[in-house]
């Protein structure tokens, strides 16, 4: 019962948010003198022939795979209360180094792929590890340091691209690394369409979809079913409580950043191994920032992130058709931005509603003193706890009422937090 209700509440917030975002976007389209219904029609118009329709699905899925990985990378850190804005830099540096390393060695098929994946994960982990180490040894906020490392990674990537890893000749308009040998091309999943009896699309469906799914399962198990994951979630919910129960907070920060960075290293690989086969100036950018949005949308739960990634993939596909219908493609970015803002606001409102209901239940014994010392962002969204620990750790959190309401809302946030 409780489970069902909790699940329902966790769905209401994103649904509400997407609704609000759609209304705002419709208003924006109205303002520029176009018909929102046309826009909707264009977005859902996947083409006339069966081949075009499967092509549209492939485009959405191919875009969703890297977005899913980006969301996953961000969510691992989120769960711990860390904000990894550095995913952008981590995946770009990881991708170019992996592309360079992959082109430099000759290995048999599967081994070559494994080699590239491992290199990318190592580079991503290393780059994110710097953030973790700076945070625990020098107290540098991970937000600032990871943003600075994004710029540094971009500079390093362009230096590597124009210098040692340059593969294209002088005077080429697009500079790329050397093309990967065919043993490092990831097999596509187009056989799936034949099995399902659908028409073949023009392009390939990324086989990396399987790896992304595996990564999602591994991360999910790691966070929900292991001692490490328990420590991680505990530190995210209440750093002081976690360290009181013997969790090495500093070690956890570094380890979490390493895992987050390793996942981030995978983000560029679907494109690299599946379609471009080299890293170039035109390589997909901005996935790291979109990953933050996707993670927020999916409430840090791998399944939710998958839905968020599909939604964003769907919206991104619509950009070009919208352009043909005389609607600026940047409408898509606006929809995405408003969805994120609406989602975080809706999460917050849902959290408050849930807590009010919980407090209502407890109010028989203790009239709502509104203490709520579980405070901060420790809601069912598993969102960000404030840096300095929850309000309850402060001197102003009264102990008496804290106990009564903590049993109500902490218990609730635990049950929903497990799923959310």
């Amino acid at each position, binding site marked *: 019962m409780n489970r069902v209700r909790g699940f329902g509440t966790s769905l209401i917030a994103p649904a509400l948010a997407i609704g609000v975002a759609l209304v705002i976007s419709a208003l924006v389209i109205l303002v520029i003198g176009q018909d929102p219904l046309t826009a909707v029609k264009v977005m859902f118009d996947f083409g006339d022939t069966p081949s075009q329709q499967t092509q549209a699905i492939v485009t959405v899925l191919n875009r969703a795979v890297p977005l899913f990985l980006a969301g996953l990378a961000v969510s691992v850190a989120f769960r711990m209360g860390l904000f990894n804005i550095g995913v952008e830099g981590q995946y770009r540096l990881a991708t170019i180094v992996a592309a360079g390393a992959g082109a430099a060695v000759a290995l048999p098929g599967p081994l070559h792929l494994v080699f590239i994946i491992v290199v990318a994960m190592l580079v991503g982990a290393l780059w994110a590890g710097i953030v973790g180490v700076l945070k625990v040894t020098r107290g540098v906020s991970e937000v600032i340091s990871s943003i600075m490392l994004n710029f540094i990674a971009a500079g390093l990537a362009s230096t590597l691209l124009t210098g040692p890893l340059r593969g294209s000749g002088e005077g080429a308009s697009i500079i790329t690394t050397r093309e990967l040998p065919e043993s490092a091309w990831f097999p596509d999943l187009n056989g799936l369409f034949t099995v399902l009896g659908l028409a073949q699309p023009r392009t390939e469906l990324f086989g990396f979809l399987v790896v992304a799914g595996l990564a999602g399962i591994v991360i999910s198990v790691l966070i929900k079913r292991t001692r490490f994951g328990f420590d991680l979630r505990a530190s995210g919910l209440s750093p002081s409580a976690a360290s009181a129960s013997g969790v090495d907070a500093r070690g956890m920060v570094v380890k979490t950043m390493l895992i987050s960075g390793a996942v981030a290293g995978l983000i560029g690989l679907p494109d690299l191994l599946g379609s471009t086969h080299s890293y170039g100036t035109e390589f997909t950018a901005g996935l790291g920032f979109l990953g933050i949005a996707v993670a927020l949308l999916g409430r840090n739960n791998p399944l939710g992130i998958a839905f968020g990634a599909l939604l964003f993939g769907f919206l991104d596909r619509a950009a070009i058709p919208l352009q043909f219908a005389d609607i600026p493609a940047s409408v898509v970015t606006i929809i995405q931005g408003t969805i994120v803002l609406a989602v975080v606001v809706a999460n917050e409102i849902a959290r408050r509603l849930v807590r009010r209901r919980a407090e209502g239940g407890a109010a028989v014994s203790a009239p709502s003193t509104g203490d709520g010392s579980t405070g901060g962002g420790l809601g069912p969204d598993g969102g960000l706890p*404030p840096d300095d620990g929850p309000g309850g750790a402060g001197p102003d959190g009264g102990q008496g009422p804290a106990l009564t309401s903590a049993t109500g809302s902490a218990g609730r946030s635990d049950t929903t937090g497990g799923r959310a």
Partner: protein
Amino acid sequence: MSTAVTTTERSAPSRGPVTELFLGGGRSRRITWLLVGLIVLFSAVRVISGEAALTSSSTFSAALLLAVPLLLVALGGLFAERAGVVNIGLDGMMILGTWGAGFAGYQWGWVGAVVGGIVAGAIGGLLHAIATVTFGVDHVVSGVAINILAGGIVRFLSELLYTDNPAGGGVTQSPALSSRPPSFSLPVLSSGPDLLGDLESKQWFLLSDVAGLLRGLTNGVGVLTVVAVLLVPAAYLLLWRTAFGLRLRSCGENPAAADSLGVPVYRLKYIAVIVSGGLAGLGGVFLVFIANIYREGQTNGRGFIGLAALIFGNWRPGGLAAGAGLFGFADALQLRSRTGVVALLLLVAVLLAGVAVYQATRRKATQAIIAAAFAAASLSGYLTIDVLPEGIVSFTPHITTLLVLSLASQRLRMPKADGLVYRRGEH
């Protein structure tokens, strides 16, 4: 107990007259000596490396030009964070400011640009305030969302208003501004006889460097730049010397206590975050003035660097001005001279060697060894590298930010309730 007392008693007079000269007196005297030391160091590095760009007046005037946007963003951050709202969205507000300045500037000249930029930035601030203060959304999350949203909005508006505009412009840029803001040079010193310019061209040790610094700060300075610099003391007076400032800061330290004393916490937070957005937008206006046009991606992450300047400055007006100056200088140097950045490595080597010696005297072996190793690395970098690749030079300000923060961050103290969501009656 008694031994502790005697050691302190003994240590005070054990300062020699030289130590007393450097470390005695108040903070202001120490800061003065620090500045003098830095200038001497710079001028020594300039003479050794033969890199005139390091202390030339053109570098300093570019540094001032680039430091002012950072200064304004950091001031914006100061208002928000002193009121307890972390503002990662500064970059987005700055982006909105650049667009507003471009839009108003091409139609109504530089005055229009200033107003347009401030208003656009303040709208971003308002959005952040609604999300964080009214809805209690996590501050960092809301800020990041605003950054994403701002990029989308400006692209959308440009697409809408500039693509078929007879005045020019396009999807990624506005038409050029219709008038430039006024500027002036100090007569005699920097223009006319230009005494400082003469002195600078002599290339004398120390004297020419100081002349370069002064000429850079007085030659062709925009009137608005002067106004922006004056905003620093103004912010100090407003936040630390008025009742309004005390109340605003109390929202960032202990909002519950402030609320219980009748301070309108929500309203003050709203005001602070909106002002913050306006200042960030004004920072964007200065970027537009540099290029005389709005261009997409003009901020290039300067909002974040401004935030770092704020943290480096320990959430104080004077400190953040120093931080903005430092990052502005690093930015100017990388734009003006790629070889100058190499000379910077020598400077870093000298500074780190100093840190190593200092840590060694305090018997902190690990820190001393780390500092010495990095000093040796930068020295060898200086000796072996002629010109750094463009990609690496481009992130000079960012790596400076990172280095400075990792050296400075531990002694900093942020406002106590900074970043905590405050809900009336829940604390």
